[in-house]
């Protein structure tokens, strides 16, 4: 099975937390690392996008967003009906799983690099597209029949939240500047990307270690959901990618995107838009369980799925 050394930094972080090491990454550094990762991914996407006729991607993009929108709609009844979670909590968790994780996606990218597998460069554009709709759907689910969506505030939070703002901003700059114009920035944003990702995973591990306990509190159902849901979403992504004619690498990335759960954009947006939802539940599940599951087991499984469906 494929293995990427960068995930060891996550383990280092989790162990530091569990062993109560005094290792701490200052909040300012966490912010800086996440700004770097979001901008770098956006720029990379923009540069790739500049290579393709944008119009030709609109159709595929719409289909992928539509399929992606199914994920929160599948997750919500599972959580609300089956899991008996309160409407707000179920909706907020559904939004987290419908949205995507830039770091999980980045680990997927490094695996492709490691295994020397090609992929459609414009997949990063879909990352940006997929981040938002689930958040809006989550708010709608939370307010269904209850009323009182503060649309203005919510949409502002979704579109101008730092996460999506930096991804889109990077995308536009990368697109406008093109591969040549962006070149002098390569040394910072592209060459250092994987090292910064390693440091970010270290911090994610530290944070996740405090979330694992929280998750335990909420019982087996949520933990089970946090493992099963990504597998469902990845299957959806694999089939969708294959039907859309993506390559093995592209199919794998789409499955990884669908399977990943947000823990940067979604928590901030949900805290404002659905404040009565308990953030410990959604972050415990997405960061404490799904994220490690994805980077250690999920990603190799999704690569196997992509290869299998392409008959490899």
């Amino acid at each position, binding site marked *: 099975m494929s293995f990427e050394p960068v995930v060891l930094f996550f383990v280092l972080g989790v162990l530091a937390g569990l062993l109560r090491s005094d290792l701490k990454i200052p*909040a300012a550094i*966490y912010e800086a690392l996440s700004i770097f990762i979001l901008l770098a991914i956006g720029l990379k996407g923009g540069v790739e996008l500049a290579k393709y006729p944008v119009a030709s991607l609109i159709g595929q993009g719409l289909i992928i967003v539509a399929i992606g929108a199914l994920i929160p709609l599948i997750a919500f009844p599972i959580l609300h009906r089956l899991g008996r979670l309160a409407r707000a909590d179920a909706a907020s968790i559904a939004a987290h799983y419908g949205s995507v994780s830039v770091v999980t996606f980045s680990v997927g990218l490094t695996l492709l690099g490691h295994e020397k597998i090609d992929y459609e460069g414009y997949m990063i554009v879909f990352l940006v597209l997929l981040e938002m709709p689930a958040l809006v759907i989550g708010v709608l689910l939370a307010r269904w029949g209850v009323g009182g969506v503060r649309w203005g505030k919510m949409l502002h939070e979704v579109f101008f939240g730092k996460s999506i703002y930096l991804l889109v901003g990077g995308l536009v700059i990368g697109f406008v500047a093109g591969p040549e114009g962006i070149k002098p920035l390569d040394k910072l944003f592209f060459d250092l990307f994987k090292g910064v990702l390693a440091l970010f995973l270290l911090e994610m591990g530290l*944070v996740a270690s405090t979330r694992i306990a*929280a998750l335990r509190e909420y019982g087996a159902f949520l933990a089970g959901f946090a493992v099963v849901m990504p597998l469902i979403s990845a299957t959806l992504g694999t089939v969708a990618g294959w039907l859309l004619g993506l390559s093995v690498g592209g199919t794998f990335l789409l499955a990884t995107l669908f399977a990943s759960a947000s823990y940067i954009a979604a928590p*901030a947006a949900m*805290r404002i838009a659905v404040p009565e939802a308990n*953030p410990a539940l959604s972050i415990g599940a997405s960061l404490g369980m799904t994220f490690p599951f994805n980077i250690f087991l999920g990603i190799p499984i999704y690569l196997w799925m992509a290869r299998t469906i392409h008959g490899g």
Partner: protein
Amino acid sequence: MPDQNMLLLTIVTESVLEDTLIDEIMALGARGYTITDARGRGTHGLRSGRWSVSSNIKIEVVGDAALVQRIVERLQAQYERDYGLLMFTCPVELQN
């Protein structure tokens, strides 16, 4: 030493509310506020300050009793149910 009896209202809450609460506080008539970054623990559990989702801020407002009461009532009504929130007051003497 001047003798202006005022109250210091201290609010400890989630960082995500910073912009919103500032707007509320100024709209209710405060002439100023001071904010510091904080972390802590309360009924909403540990807030480690390690990432923005889990950070607190401490907002301090010096004002007269009426202003403080307006702010307290507004925050109780609007944010207490859903957000980590601690508010307490203490009489202070303004020195300038």
